[in-house]
């Protein structure tokens, strides 16, 4: 077991002992269990999966969409400083599809590098949301 603390600017969202946490980092997805070596890494846009105990199946994991941040593992404590998180319950598939289409159009229309970057980050974000919405549909 490992202590998980998920902290955003809106407060401490999660503070409890868990069995396994899957985290998207800029260097790829990692899984953190109890007794993990000290680690500091950068959070990417993606989905965090939390398994409270060994017997929970993949479909029973808690999922949270996260958009960037930092994470630290030290003394059997995993601290995730997330820039922004989203509860998958609030993600509607049709809306996200529309938003993703809009973001692609925005990127096509973009002229300078700044607006291309902005559109790309929107695309990345909505891709994550679409994934999380699809996951929800399969499991329910």
């Amino acid at each position, binding site marked *: 077991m490992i202590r998980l*603390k998920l*902290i*955003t*600017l*809106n*407060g*401490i969202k999660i503070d409890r002992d868990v069995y396994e946490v899957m985290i998207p*980092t*800029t*260097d790829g997805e990692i899984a953190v269990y109890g007794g993990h*070596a*000290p*680690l*500091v*890494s*950068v959070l990417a846009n993606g989905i965090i999966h939390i398994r409270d105990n060994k017997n929970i199946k993949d479909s029973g994991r808690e999922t949270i969409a996260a958009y960037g*941040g*930092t994470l*630290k*593992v*030290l*003394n059997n404590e995993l*601290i995730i*400083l997330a*820039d922004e998180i989203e509860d998958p319950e609030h993600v509607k598939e049709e809306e996200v599809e529309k938003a993703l289409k809009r973001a692609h159009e925005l990127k096509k229309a973009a002229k300078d590098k700044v607006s291309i970057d902005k559109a790309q980050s929107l695309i990345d974000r909505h891709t994550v949301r679409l994934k999380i919405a699809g996951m929800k549909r399969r499991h329910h």
Partner: protein
Amino acid sequence: MSAGVTSLKRRIGSVKNTRQITKAMELVAASKMRRAQEFAINSRPFKDEARLLIGQLSSVSDVKLDSLFKTRPIKTELLIVISSDRGLAGAYNANVFKSLVGVVQENKSKKVSTKIVTIGRQAGQFVAKLGGVDHASAHLMLGDHPSTDTVVTILEETIKKYLGDEIDSVKVVYTQFVSSIRQDVVANTLIPYVIDPDDKKTEAKEMSPLEVAIFEPSVEAIIKSTAERLIEAQLWQALLESVASEHSMRMMAMKNASDNAADIIDDLTLELNTARQAAITQEMAEIIGGAEAAVKV
């Protein structure tokens, strides 16, 4: 005589109306304060953890700190001043401006030129009249909950200027929310980010494990991505603290106004009663006088 009674009645009526308004404003401010306070307190853990992390990272051996952490001789200083859009908040804005003028004067005596970025309409208007400083940009608070957009725009511009050597130090002048009845104006250095001795202390007992930690992708990359975040969080926190202070000071100001209105109403009512009684006495004296005169005839 009855003219005096009528005008007193009218005055009581108008003070009562005023009290109704101040009372309503007090209640509105109270509920906004509770929300703002919650926001301010909720975002504290993030700031604390981020600071701790930076402190721990900075003492990992052979780490090259980002330039956002290095102090250099100060020639130009940027002040970010946070006030409210609207007035009627007691001494809230006046306190901020007093502290701002203090910092500007101190800079003047040290031959440091001052640039100012204002957040909130009141500060914008004050700095525009101040003179002797460079009013770089003005932003509005817009609404009761500050938007992250303001923070991001201001900081993007500020960090660019700092890294381009246009400014050598950034301070935030804002009101720290201590409790509903106590708020202090502080001027905190935002950039360069100084790792304070408190952080060092905590890290002394916790540092050894992080010395052998894995860093992905690299310490430098982590510091780079965390540093801007941390500075953003600091400014964000300052905004939230300011909003919480604004509402609690407005609440207190409106409470005082309501109490004062109640006192005035009491005084006026007393005066009204005296005047009314005097009028009655006078009328009776006239009637009695008239009757006596009739009897004599």
